[in-house]
């Protein structure tokens, strides 16, 4: 299979404009003859569904939540980047493009990233017009802050609830189209398979989560906006329902899965407190603007602190190691996420971690509290401090926060070309569900940007190009491929119900998460990955012989839902391990211990690994086939990332 990214010819800055002119248009009167399915209604899905409906297409939108407003986009705290240069501090489309490519450690496509930076400015205009209450200055204009490794202030925000406000904006646009009858919304409905007819995506099979009813839905095109797969690790900052099932089912129907091992470990999360822990909570990266990260200078002092023999306040200033400021004087506490996470792990591995388990570092606000007072800090970070206190029962105004890295985002995802179309014609993937824009590491405040860029400003153009080449004839579920897919879905549900073993879906999920975190987490090596592969295969065998699910299919059955998602994670986890094993280099969030500089930084191998690894499914328990999309860089020079 030859992967064609379909990147338009011409200079970088003109590609998207040219492409928009070159794509075919669907006659306005014909648009209503096309049906489009959008699965997932977070930022990427709701924006796509609303925009496509506004254009005149008939949209069917699907969410497993009780309302699109619950999608996990809502939990994004810090902000959204845009190259507005409102602050006159030297930002530009090219700088946002450059920062994103560099931050992604040169494993993303130039053309896609440049387009992302271009349309970023339109997103802010769109959201403001919808009534999204961004932070403002006293003069009434929009406020910005610098965020996560950027040296310009290009991040727009709404206190610590930017994701919520942007999602409610996209949600309101979606609700408006539902009211107009242009979008038919299916809440509490989960996609369980993709239907491919004559090589083209033609529909999906769903399960109604309240009644268990299995349904077939046909359309001219299918857009997956189903988010990331961070919950492979069981513990992550993802919401509990976030899962990979829709994307994984599409993968098994032929869609390539790209760079699955590229996962982002976020440096500032509240540490694990016990075995019962069900998820991890992120403390926004914006806290690193003013919080200083440190651990005790000596192992001995850290030990005494952990045992409770001394208190934080007993550690003098000169005995504190502000390790990020020390190692990276230029960026200090604002180094990219992968660098910050890895360094926190290194400190804890050295024995200088804090908290009872030793798996935490301090994030200290005493300096800014002295500078601008408790009131000032509360205005900036009040809701985050309150959330921290609720969870830990500790007051961060009085003592430093304890933080530790946690799985947060997955850069990998379904392979898409420049049009966001997968290799299966008619199947598109947007937002975190695709792999396209963040390379091996995503910059802070760029996930919201990408989700909305894809949904509002890319898909509405590119999907038209495909539909214009598709006859505007009604599509139905008459084809045998629908019956076949439904039969497979039913058979699988029956299998879950019929095993009648002893272990719950959560127990298998936790066991998988443990393997993934231990061997395919912040640091990986060949030996560990080989071990992990065997362990996952073994666990999968046990799953299919010892799973316990109670109740019926024909009712609200949350255990059955979980079983299906865990079954898919058990397959995806193995592919992530394979991908990490194949990539004999370190880049971004993928850190192979064998490949590091003498200073312990990620060591890329551009000669051999400057490619997108796109995997093709071959059948159950058969190794997947690797396809390579070579990445060419014409506008940036590949350098060793340095934040020193």
């Amino acid at each position: 299979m030859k992967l064609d990214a379909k990147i338009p010819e011409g200079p970088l800055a003109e590609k998207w404009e040219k492409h928009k002119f070159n794509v075919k248009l669907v006659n306005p009167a014909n648009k209503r003859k096309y049906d489009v399915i959008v699965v997932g209604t977070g930022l990427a899905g709701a924006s796509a569904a609303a925009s496509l409906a506004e254009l005149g297409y008939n949209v069917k939108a699907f969410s497993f939540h009780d309302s699109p407003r619950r999608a996990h986009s809502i939990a994004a705290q810090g902000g959204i980047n845009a190259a507005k240069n409102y602050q006159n501090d030297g930002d530009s489309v090219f700088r946002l493009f450059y920062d994103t490519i560099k931050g992604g450690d040169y494993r993303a496509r130039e053309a896609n990233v440049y387009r992302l930076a271009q349309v970023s400015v339109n997103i802010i205009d769109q959201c403001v017009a919808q009534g999204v209450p961004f932070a403002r200055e006293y003069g009434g204009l929009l406020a910005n802050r610098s965020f996560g490794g950027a040296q310009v202030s290009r991040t727009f925000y709404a206190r610590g609830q930017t994701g919520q406000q942007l999602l409610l904006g996209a949600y309101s646009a979606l609700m408006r189209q539902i009211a107009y009858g242009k979008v038919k919304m299916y809440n509490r409905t989960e996609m369980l398979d993709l239907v491919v007819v004559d090589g083209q995506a033609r529909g999906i099979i769903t399960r109604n989560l309240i009644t268990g009813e299995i349904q077939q839905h046909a359309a001219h095109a299918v857009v997956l906006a189903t988010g990331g797969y961070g919950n492979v690790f069981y513990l992550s900052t993802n919401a509990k329902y976030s899962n990979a099932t829709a994307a994984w089912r599409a993968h098994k129907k032929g869609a390539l899965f790209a760079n699955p091992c590229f996962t982002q470990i976020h440096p500032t999360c509240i540490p694990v407190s016990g075995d019962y822990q069900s998820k991890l909570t992120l403390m926004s990266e914006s806290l690193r603007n003013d919080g200083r990260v440190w651990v005790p200078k000596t192992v001995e002092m850290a030990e005494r602190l952990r045992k409770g023999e001394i208190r934080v306040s007993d550690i003098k200033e000169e005995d504190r190691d502000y390790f990020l400021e020390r190692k990276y004087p230029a960026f200090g506490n604002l180094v990219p996420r992968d660098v910050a996470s890895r360094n926190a792990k290194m400190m804890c591995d050295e024995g200088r971690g804090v908290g009872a388990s030793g798996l935490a570092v301090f994030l200290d606000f005493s300096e800014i509290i002295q500078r601008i007072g408790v009131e000032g800090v509360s205005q900036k970070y009040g809701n985050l401090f309150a959330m921290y206190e609720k969870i830990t029962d500790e007051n961060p105004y009085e003592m430093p926060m304890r933080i530790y890295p946690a799985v947060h985002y997955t850069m990998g995802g379904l392979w898409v070309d420049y049009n966001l179309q997968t290799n299966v014609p008619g199947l598109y993937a947007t937002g975190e569900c695709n792999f396209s824009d963040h390379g091996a590491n995503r910059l802070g405040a760029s996930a919201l940007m990408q989700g909305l860029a894809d949904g509002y400003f890319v898909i509405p153009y590119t999907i038209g190009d495909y539909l214009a080449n598709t006859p505007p004839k009604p599509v139905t579920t008459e084809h045998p491929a629908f019956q076949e897919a439904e039969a497979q879905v039913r058979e699988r549900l029956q299998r879950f119900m019929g095993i009648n073993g002893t272990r719950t879906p959560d127990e298998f999920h936790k066991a998988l998460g443990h393997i993934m975190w231990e061997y395919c987490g912040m640091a990986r090596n060949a030996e560990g990955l080989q071990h992990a592969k065997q362990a996952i295969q073994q666990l999968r065998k046990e799953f299919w012989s010892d799973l316990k699910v109670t109740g019926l299919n024909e009712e609200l059955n949350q255990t059955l839902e979980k079983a299906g998602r865990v079954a898919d994670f058990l397959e995806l986890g193995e592919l992530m391990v394979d991908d990490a094993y194949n990539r004999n280099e370190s880049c971004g969030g993928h850190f192979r211990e064998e490949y590091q500089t003498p200073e312990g930084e990620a060591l890329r191998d551009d000669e051999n690994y400057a490619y997108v690894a796109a995997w093709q499914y071959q059948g159950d328990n058969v190794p997947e086939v690797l396809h390579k999309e070579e990445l060419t860089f014409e506008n940036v020079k590949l350098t060793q990332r340095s934040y020193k």
Partner: protein
Amino acid sequence: MAGSNPNAKPMDLTLKVWRQRNRTADGQLVDYQVKNISPDMSFLEMLDVLNEDLLHKGEDPVAFDHDCREGICGSCNLYINGRAHGPEPGTTTCQLHMRKFKDGDTIVVEPWRAAAFPVNRDLSVDRSAFDRIIQAGGYVSVNTGGVPDANEIPVPKSIADRAFDAATCIGCGACVASCKNASAMLFVSAKVSQLALLPQGQVERKTRVENMVAQMDKEGFGACTNIGSCAAECPVGISLENIAILNREFLAAKATSNNLA
């Protein structure tokens, strides 16, 4: 490791949980014992323990809604000991921690109770009425593209901040559950005020409030009698002032517009 009180002992608790097979079945409170509950657990993690236990015994776990477990998605909705989201003010169920309870406590766990929120199963309810109210007008009618530059719509900071305070509603429905009339006024007023305050919302200001209130009534929510338990129990602090704004907006719209019969 977390928690200022590492010596806090694990707790044994009695739960009285509402069990109801489906929308039409009869329901009842069922007693369960949970043991060894860490004070650092969240309330939902305590229910996870119960559910794993039930599953091992071959019984159906308790269905409940939850997702982000960070207090922002608005999914979780438990009525705990007679209070929406339990005893701690300004807190969603998922952010309520077991350190707020004592060893030996009996805890009653019910779903939201309101005619407009039918029970799906056990503790899970159907809140799609909220979506339909937003569909009636809780938006600014702008299509994608063709909008002015963001800074061409300046908004005074004080107005933007007040609009944000209203926009922060998570749509959980605690206001409805806390209200003796099961009124949705706080929810509706939060969206109406956000958009009435902002310049972007002016064009549709009158029709919006009329249509949203009409839909609210149609869904079977009760009337507001100014008790204020909605604002007192709101986990994100939506102010009662919004209801005053809603009443004013509604009156002004009805007095001056011919938009609705």
